[in-house]
């Protein structure tokens, strides 16, 4: 869909993005993670064309720029307009034929569950409604590429679940989505690609499947602290690590599971829990950001 080549952007002395390269292909849901000030919103605004890169370029892979639906992080609207009026303007600007404006607006409102609020002034809308309205305007005109900057920010758990379902539906329809979020479970569930930004640089980039299947490990939890036998367990393999009541086995050390279980029972410990785990997105994020 689009390709970002060696893009840098600074604001006065602050380097917001530093030599970013990224390819977003058709049908992908790319999750952009990063702490506040990492450059996520700057990246969105560059792709949306609101900002111009200082260096590098952003170009469509197919030669023609896709239509972009942009849901900003800030939920700001022309407050004096009603919900349906606002969406009518967006529909006109998106090139929807006049005869289909009403139908398009209705479909969009239905999709985000705002039909009952259609004639309500935006000024009276709650934060949840505004999030849905922001998504509705991004969906008007059926753009193939969506930029969703923190779509579930400030929503209650129910609202977050609904937003997650909507993004999954959009993915199923074949939309290409660039999603920024601080909600790691949301990113884990909907994204097919993962990009972690920190201080304007890409610290980590992988497919979500590959990101979460690296570093499998087994955790054996005993009934009490293992400090007495920690040295002898850790001496078995460098990838064996004792932490309080738990023994963590990584990589080849996972083969030693039976031996460690036997040793624990032999030493009079009771094994209360054995779990084979994959790395979590939180761990991937923490490693990328801390590195």
């Amino acid at each position, binding site marked *: 869909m689009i390709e970002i080549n060696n893009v840098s952007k600074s604001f006065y002395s602050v380097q917001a993005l530093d030599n970013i390269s990224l390819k977003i292909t058709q049908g992908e849901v790319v999750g952009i993670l990063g702490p506040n000030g990492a450059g996520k919103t700057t990246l969105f605004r560059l792709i949306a064309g*609101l900002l111009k890169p200082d260096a590098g370029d952003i170009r469509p892979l197919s030669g023609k720029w896709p239509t972009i639906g942009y849901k900003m992080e800030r939920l700001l609207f022309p407050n004096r307009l009603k919900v349906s009026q606002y969406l009518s303007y967006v529909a006109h*600007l998106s090139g929807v034929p006049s005869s289909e404006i009403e139908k398009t607006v209705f479909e969009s409102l239905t999709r985000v569950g705002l039909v009952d609020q259609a004639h309500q002034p935006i000024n009276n809308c709650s934060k949840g409604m505004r999030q849905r309205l922001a998504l509705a305007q991004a969906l008007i005109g059926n753009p193939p590429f969506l930029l969703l900057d923190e779509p579930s920010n400030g929503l209650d758990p129910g609202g977050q679940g609904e937003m997650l379902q909507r993004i999954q539906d959009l993915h199923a329809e074949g939309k290409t989505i660039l999603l920024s979020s601080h909600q790691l479970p949301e990113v884990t569930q909907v994204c097919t690609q993962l990009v972690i930004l920190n201080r304007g640089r890409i610290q980590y980039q992988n497919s979500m499947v590959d990101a979460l299947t690296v570093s499998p490990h087994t955790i054996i939890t005993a009934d009490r602290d293992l400090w007495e036998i920690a040295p002898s367990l850790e001496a078995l393999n460098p990838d064996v690590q004792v932490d309080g009541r738990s023994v963590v086995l990584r990589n080849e050390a996972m083969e030693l599971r039976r031996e460690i279980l036997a040793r624990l029972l032999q030493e009079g410990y009771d094994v209360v829990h054995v779990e084979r785990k994959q790395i979590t997105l939180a761990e991937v994020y923490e490693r990328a950001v801390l590195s």
Partner: protein
Amino acid sequence: MNRILTLTSYLLRSLFTSLAGVIYLILTLAFWFILFNPRQKTPDASYYILVIGLFGAALVFLITLTNASRANKVELAPWLVRLPSRIEYLTAVFLSSIIAAGILQLLLALLSLISGPTLTFSQVLGIPPVWLSTMVVTAVLALHATDLVTHGWSRVYVFGILAVLLFGRSVTNQSISGFASNLSEMALNRGWYEISESLRNFAVAQQGSDTNIISQLLGFVFWPFQALADGISGGGFTAVEALAPAILLLYAAILFVLAADFFAAKDMQMTE
């Protein structure tokens, strides 16, 4: 075109349903009451055309600043993203300002006809080109003064050049001669004898000359404004003066292309 009209209608609606719109309406009525009070004696046609034309120019400047400020709000960023070209956005701001100021100017013009001057048919025909060309060039100039269009130091360059032209227009032979004499002395002190001599000769020539080259050259840029004023106050335009509105529109076109260029290349740092 449909997109431009949609944005234009939004900006017009936004203006006329806001306090700023009401203030502009009150300003128009106050202007009418003060300068075209129906209880006073009838002003002549040239006064009517000139004063309302100037009012329209001043009003379109202010309305363009207001509209551009509204268009520069971050809440409209998703709309801007939808447009195939940023120029459509700028055109809508320009168009909405012209329409809004035009409506108020027309209101003033109609109100001022109450106990106002009797206009001949040829005078009525002459009004639209004069008022419209003045408004268009002023609106485009106002665009350059807005945060929406300003790109880097562009505002300083555009208005700096304008200030230099205005200053140059009013410069006298005496001041040119004095300036050339000072330069001549500086050149002499540095040992640049030939340059000093040339400058001194130029200073002497200017002192005794009736023609002011610099003033004439720079004043040429402002000729259309002078021609319009002369044509209106003289009660009719000569063939050459009649070209003035067209030249003003040419200026507006050049300035709009420049504004479009700045706007297309700039970072949109929209306000909240």
